[in-house]
């Protein structure tokens, strides 16, 4: 490279374009500094700083939402592409990290654990997710994805005194490394065939989305490229928990601390879908292959998730497996998105509704959980509506929205995805999806039933005393406010989707 080329390349490094990501990184480091300089008694302000800082970044991001000058531009020599979807996903990931931080405060109060690192890692992972959503290059994709995954290895096994948490961390580590390897292998195959100067239509930049696409267009039936595409899809399928790469989900979801489970369920899954949607135009010349792979996955994922969730009693496992089925509905939307552009907006609205509902449910679970975070059973919700009516109300709204019941936001998301799938003519998948929705009613309403309907208890044997109930975690102000906002959001976006839906769907 000559000096001129390097200078031209450096001139394209517009650091201001990634201000939110940099701000998150600085905030993360600042937390560690604060831990060193503040006296131990004052450490309680650090999580508050983390949340306040994120709120500030969120506000700045919202103000510059459409005003940012980098919209529809490539920066960092094509490593990043800034788009409206990218802006939406930035807000999405930031919202989830704020909620995870709030839940983290509640959950960590019960554990004797270092506090600050939790928030630090959450912030770093979030910044990586934001970059991932805007990446336009396989190298950045892999680096960002690995940053996320490594962060999650630590977060999943965060309660290191709990063997289940450690087991979950190990499982996630082994299977996560395997999936990263598969993904990397796929990327390398694509790189190899696209960058081979002897092959027809080879490209000078075989790591960039544009370059790979150019090669695939010129070679619509290259065997190695097909294998590479399938491997890349498989690697992403692991992140979103699609069948047959869902085996890790129940154990990891159960073992991980509840806020981390929520982070995995919402943000990590959304990140996977962001990558998938970003890659759709790249793999467009192989649309037949992609459709075949994703359709089979979607159908199997919907059925497996719902059937497996039917018999669960541990609510974390239940939510994990029901989350698998949600990945299936979303995959159906991705298949549709190949021919119906509106489907992309439908997927994002679905994810947004899923965020509201999932965090509502996970927030309630965080307040119900005892010291052993992995032990959360349906039986713990007996007489819940009488004992804690506020939490029970939020839980009912969250579960109803997850089940896709009008007038809640989750229903609107499902409707949009179903309409898109219908437009794309995916009738067999729609039939499977209907079976899935009806099955899901059983376990979602089974949970509502456990919380609301009066339960019969065996009378006490003579001499037996009523087992003392574990002290319930009180609902503090920030968590209570978050719960209220999430529940209200699910209801309001069910009735009135307003400009958000119009903005997402118009394309």
């Amino acid at each position, binding site marked *: 490279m000559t000096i001129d080329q390097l200078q031209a390349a450096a001139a394209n490094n517009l650091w201001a374009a990634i201000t939110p990501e940099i701000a998150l990184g600085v905030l993360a480091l600042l937390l560690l500094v604060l831990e060193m300089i503040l006296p131990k008694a004052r450490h309680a302000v650090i999580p508050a700083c983390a949340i306040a800082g994120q709120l500030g970044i969120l506000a700045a991001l919202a103000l510059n939402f459409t005003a940012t000058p980098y919209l529809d531009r490539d920066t960092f020599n094509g490593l990043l592409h800034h788009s409206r979807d990218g802006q939406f996903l930035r807000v999405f990931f930031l919202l989830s990290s704020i909620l995870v931080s709030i839940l983290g405060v509640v959950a960590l109060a019960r554990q004797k654990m270092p506090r600050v690192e939790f928030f630090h890692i959450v912030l770093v992972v979030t910044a990586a997710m934001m970059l991932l959503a805007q990446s336009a290059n396989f190298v950045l994709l892999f680096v960002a994805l690995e940053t996320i995954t490594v962060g999650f290895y630590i977060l999943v096994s965060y309660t290191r005194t709990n063997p289940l948490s450690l087991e979950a961390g190990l499982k996630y580590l082994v299977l996560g490394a395997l999936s990263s390897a598969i993904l990397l292998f796929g990327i390398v195959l694509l790189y190899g065939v696209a960058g081979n100067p002897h092959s027809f239509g080879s490209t000078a930049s075989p790591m960039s989305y544009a370059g790979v696409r150019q090669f695939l267009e010129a070679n619509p039936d290259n065997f190695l490229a097909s294998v590479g595409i399938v491997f890349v899809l498989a690697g992403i399928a692991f992140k979103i928990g699609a069948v047959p790469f869902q085996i890790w989900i129940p154990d990891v979801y159960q073992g991980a601390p509840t806020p981390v489970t929520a982070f995995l369920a919402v943000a990590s899954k959304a990140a996977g879908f962001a990558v998938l949607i970003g890659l759709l135009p790249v793999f467009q010349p192989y649309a037949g292959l992609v459709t075949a792979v994703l359709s089979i996955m979607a159908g199997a994922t919907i059925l497996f998730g719902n059937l497996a969730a039917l018999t669960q009693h541990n609510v974390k496992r239940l939510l994990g497996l029901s989350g698998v089925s949600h990945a299936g509905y979303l995959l159906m939307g991705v298949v549709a998105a190949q021919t119906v552009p509106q489907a992309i907006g439908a997927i994002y609205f679905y994810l947004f509704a899923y965020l509201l509902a999932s965090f509502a449910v996970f927030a309630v679970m965080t307040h119900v959980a005892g010291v052993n975070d992995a032990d959360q059973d349906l039986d713990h919700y007996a007489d819940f509506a009488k004992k804690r009516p506020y939490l029970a109300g939020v839980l*009912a709204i969250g579960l109803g929205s997850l089940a896709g019941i009008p007038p809640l936001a989750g229903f609107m998301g499902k409707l949009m995805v179903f309409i898109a799938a219908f437009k794309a003519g995916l009738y067999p998948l729609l039939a499977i999806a*209907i079976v899935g929705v009806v099955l899901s*009613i059983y376990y979602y309403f089974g949970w509502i039933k456990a919380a609301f*309907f009066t339960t019969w208890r065996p009378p006490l044997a003579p001499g037996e005393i009523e087992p003392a109930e574990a002290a319930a975690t009180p609902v503090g102000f920030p968590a209570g406010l978050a719960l209220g906002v999430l529940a209200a959001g699910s209801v309001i976006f069910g009735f009135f989707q307003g400009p958000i*839906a*119009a903005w997402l769907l118009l394309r």
Partner: protein
Amino acid sequence: MPDLLLLSIAAPLAAALLLLVPAPLAARKFIAGIGFALPALIALYLWSQFPPNGGASYHFVSRYDTGLKDTLGITLYLGLNGIALPLFVLAGVVGLAAGLFAIQSKAERLPLYLGLLLVMQAGLMGVFASMDVFFFYFFHELALIPTFIMVGVWGGRDRGYAAMKLTIYLTLGAMLSLIGLIAIYQQSGAETFDLLSLRQEIEHGSLAASDQKTIFGLLMVGFGILVSLFPFHTWAPLGYGAAPSSAAMLHAGVLKKFGLYGLIQIALPLLPEGVGHWVGWLALLAVGGNVLYIGFVTIAQRDLKQMIGYSSVMHMGYAFLGIAAYNTTGLGGVVLMMVAHGLSVALLFLLSTSIYHRTQTFDMEEMGGLAQKAPVLAAFFVTAIMASIGLPGLANFWGELAIFVGAWKFSAVYTTLAVSGVIISAVYGLRSVARIFFGPVTPAFAKVSTEKAPTDLAWGEKFPALLLLAALLAIGFWPKSLSTPVDTAITATFRK
């Protein structure tokens, strides 16, 4: 005043929200009462303002954008035509009766119970006021969810099982009809859920006959499950048996009519070429299954609420037969019968709870001689049963008559079989009257009545019952008040 329709939906919802605010019970009851009364008053007022021969077109039209207008073609589009008006009035009247009955009941956690009923009421008003197919579905689900919780929390025997079964069945029906509605939206190329635009689009022949056939099949089964079409009826008697009385009144009386209304207002006019393929099956299931088979099952019931539940399943058979007949007389009869059946079955569920409070049982074998202690209750119950059998002078008679006349042109055999169903109704209806109110006092009832002497109907129970009875009699003696708008609407929609 076009916004009145929106108000009739928003008022109960607002009242339900207000009930969440801690306040003395009397104040909350008052708020709930307003929430129930406003929709009923609006419905009656709009009925009086409805142009006598203007049933064919929509009136009181208003339109609101919820953010999906440009992208999905969904708007909150409200208005009433001659088919929607009677059902809108029905929803208002039965809602008021059920609400008043609930307010005077001694249910546990009464504010929550009233709040859920109010949400259900809002959904019911919305279903029949919607001119947008999407919101028609949306409001149905809004009304359905409270039913699940009410059955599960305030229900009677087997409530947990009944609530789950009811919800799973009804979700299946709703999902099938949703896919059918999306299919109409998509295959017609209209890309809008607005009923009028859909109609225009399809009149130009944009929906192929084979598509119409498939979609009608989907809607028939989907809506059929919601209306308890044989053999998808098993949720109904079980659910109604377990449901608290006001929820059963609203569900059996009004919400269940959603499926029939959807068939008449949406499926038949939009899919004329798909109907012919299915009417044979529909008539067979309706007459052979709902009327005759379920008729005999009803005779065998000992439990009063189960008997009313099965009888309502049986009466849906007549409605399906009228739809299968697919002519103006038959369809007009179905709309009239939907209103009449809604009023009479709501009255029966109300009275059965009043009977339970006096006998402490729903088992009719353990009752007897209640008429001596509660003559007014007996008079009400006898009238309600007579209405349900189809005695002239009460609303149901006109509906059933028109259905039979319409169905005769369709098939004489099915009509004859269906008419013989009236005898079955008479058998179980009159037998239940005899068992509950007349004959010797059973030892079980004697024991109950010595512990707590049964009183006659109190005003709190009498007033809602009177409301329903007055409506039944008014329509029975003056059917033209409803049949004129229905007739003009049906004739204009089905020109054949």
